[in-house]
């Protein structure tokens, strides 16, 4: 059984410290994803494990022996490396390149034997490159060449496989196949694989352990559940991301959200009526615009509920799959009445959530500006035998604004907000000049609303 122990490793390029105090113990069968933003030291760590960069401090033990005291040929029998750069200047054929992987197992003057040929053929079949065997590698596509180089590494029959961004040149099917292959080698043959992977989702799907580096230090290490949390991703990658479990593959998956824009907060509350994921994007966008949001009523476990939780938006919630009770309805109405605006997404309406529409109607009658996103006609998503449709008509009559597409909403909401700000100022300040400005602003806004 192979083992790899990294203890207190510090790496430098010249006097610049790249890695500091990295410790990690890897056991047979582990598939370790080395994660981290650009410049966090992933490749450097891999280089120090592959003996290309001797650590300034610390030790790396391969099967309890100091890695750097071993001969290249001894290490090559145990460890294979798939480098980041896969250019090859000379026109060796793919098979010749793969056979080079047999070098550690050959004597100095020995020609490759039949056994070496069998190994080469096997690994080339595994990486789907046998049909390229007699093609010169420098004429292959990047992805083909990458698979040939992975085959060369496998031809070494290594116990440890190090891969530096192995998926860079590969299309999606080849990415999955290569990761599948590596995973199966770990599980079936008990080899150790360590890969620098930029795609967090691929790492989450195939690795069983992860090492998250940040600024040359280990930020988190261990099982995927421990390492791949939205807090860790937020801190290290500076990106908001939702971490969920994929119902099909049962692996974690990560939905990165675009980096937050820093709009100044607006003193304006918007209540969102949504469900089934129809409000997710809107919540993110409006929050970035600086509005303070509320949402409801949403069932717990609803996608929009999870989004709201993630974005720290206050939600009036109901138990999973339950109709809205009177208590939550009135709490929700209170929020609506206090809001400056209400947005209703094109969520389907049934008897369970019909009261959201009724509350909105009440709020509109109180004068709360309401926007209704009408991407799908209401009769298609009305499961109340026409009650929701009728309520929509009423809402329209009382001044709710219908919008054909959600992407138009932010501009409209911003214009309305600016108008309300001006009106507020006009009430407190000297009339005249300001009022005129108000009128000018009003014109285009009206125009838009009529659209």
């Amino acid at each position, binding site marked *: 059984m192979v083992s790899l122990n990294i203890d207190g490793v510090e790496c430098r390029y010249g006097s610049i410290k790249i890695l500091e105090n990295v410790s990690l113990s890897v056991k047979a069968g582990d598939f370790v994803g080395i994660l981290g933003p650009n410049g966090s030291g992933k490749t450097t760590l891999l280089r120090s494990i592959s003996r290309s960069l001797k650590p300034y401090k610390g030790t790396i033990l391969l099967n309890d022996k100091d890695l750097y005291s071993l001969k290249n040929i001894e290490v090559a029998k145990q460890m294979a490396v798939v480098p980041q750069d896969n250019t090859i*200047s*000379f026109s060796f054929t793919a098979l010749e390149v793969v056979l080079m992987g047999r*070098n550690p197992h050959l004597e100095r*003057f020995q020609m490759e034997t039949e056994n070496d040929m069998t190994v080469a053929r096997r690994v080339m079949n595994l990486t789907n490159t046998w049909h390229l065997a007699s093609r010169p590698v420098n004429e292959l596509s990047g992805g083909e060449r990458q698979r040939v180089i992975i085959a060369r590494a496998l031809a070494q029959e290594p116990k440890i496989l190090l891969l530096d961004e192995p998926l860079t040149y590969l299309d999606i099917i080849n990415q999955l196949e290569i990761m599948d292959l590596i995973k199966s080698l770990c599980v079936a043959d008990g080899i150790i694989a360590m890969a620098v992977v930029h795609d967090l989702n691929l790492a989450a799907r195939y690795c069983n352990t992860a090492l998250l580096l940040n600024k040359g230090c280990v930020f988190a290490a261990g099982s995927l559940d421990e390492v791949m949390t939205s807090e860790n991703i937020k801190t290290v990658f500076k990106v908001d991301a939702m971490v969920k479990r994929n119902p099909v593959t049962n692996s974690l998956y990560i939905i990165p959200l675009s980096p937050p824009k820093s709009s100044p907060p607006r003193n304006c509350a918007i209540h969102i009526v949504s469900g089934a994921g129809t409000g997710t994007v809107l919540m993110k966008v409006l929050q970035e615009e600086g509005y303070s949001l509320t949402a409801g009523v949403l069932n717990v476990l609803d996608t929009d509920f999870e989004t709201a939780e993630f974005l720290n938006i206050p939600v009036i919630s109901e138990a999973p799959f339950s109709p809205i009770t009177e208590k939550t309805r009135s709490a929700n109405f209170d929020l609506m009445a206090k809001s400056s605006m209400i947005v209703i997404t094109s969520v389907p309406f049934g008897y369970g959530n019909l009261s959201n529409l009724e509350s909105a109607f009440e709020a509109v009658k109180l004068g709360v500006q309401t926007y209704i996103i009408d991407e799908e006609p209401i009769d298609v998503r009305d499961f109340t035998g026409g009650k929701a449709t009728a309520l929509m008509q009423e809402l329209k009559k009382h001044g709710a604004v219908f919008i054909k597409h959600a992407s138009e909403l932010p501009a409209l909401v911003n214009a309305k907000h600016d108008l309300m700000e001006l009106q507020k100022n006009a009430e407190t300040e000297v009339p005249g000049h300001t009022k005129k400005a108000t009128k000018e602003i009003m014109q285009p806004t009206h125009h838009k609303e009529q659209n």
Partner: protein
Amino acid sequence: MSDGKIEGIYANRSSRWKIILVALVLALFLTLIVSLNIGYASISFSQILAILGKQIPFLSGSINSASISPSSQAIIILIRLPRVLAAALVGAGLAAAGVIYQGIFRNPMADSYLLGASAGASVGYSIAVLYVSSALTIVGLGIAQTFAFIFALLTVFLVLFISRVGHRIPITTLLLSGVVVNIFLLAMETLMELHSGQALTGIIAWLAGGFSDIVWLQVWAVMPFVIIGIAITFFFTRDLNMLSMGDETAQHLGVNTEKVRQLLLVIASLMTAAAVAISGVIGFVGLIIPHMTRLAIGPDHRILLPASAVVGAMFLVICDAVARVATGASELPVGVITALVGTPFFIYLLRRRKTTYSL
């Protein structure tokens, strides 16, 4: 192509390589014989063979000496044979060195000429001619050629040292420092020529490169460098395959990169320096021959190295023969011929590299 066929081709590589090598060596032998026939005095092939046969201990008894005129024998043994052998050794040495440089630097543009070997040798030669007593000899060799050898070696090491970045030698810095050192040495050379004010016909003739004044001693001097150099390199041809994939890759595949690289660079530089010292400035052999051989038989150094050496030997023997007969009275320097062939080829490589090779 069926699967069995692919495996068959690779299984038979070893015997195919042997056939290629035997054929090439035979061709070289023929070239040598034909080349011995070329010259001012006409000596028939049968005479040449008889003269050569007489030199071989076992055969000498069975050869009829009567048909051999003493003057013909003198011409063949003392003038043409050393000259032809020197051309062959220099060609083999330069080509083998080219194979090594190109493999180690992962680039088919690397060549001893670009590394400054010839320019270094010229400066060494000129210093010796102009400032050192020509009566001095070192192990029987002229002081000028000894200086040429030492300066060629020093220049190559200097260029390698300048272009070294950390543990690696990027091909771009290598070519650039080669160019810079070449220019510097050329300036030195010009300075010396101006300063001396003498008629420098000897130096100029030597600079142009050629084998017109070769004596046996020089053949014996260059032979061990080339033969032993190629023999040792042959031990490391599989390593050279992997080094041509890049240092780190070679290391990951089990090659003792530092040691092999240093050893092979020293061997290549010694071969180059020895060759340049007796032949003068003969450019592009180390560039063209390995490249053409690679195009013909593939990049595997296990066959590329010996094949390039033999082809290089043949090439220079032919160039030398052409030099002898091309212009009636005075000889054409061999360096001129190789440069005339080499420059267009180098330009072709540069153009082609844009699509095929990466630095």
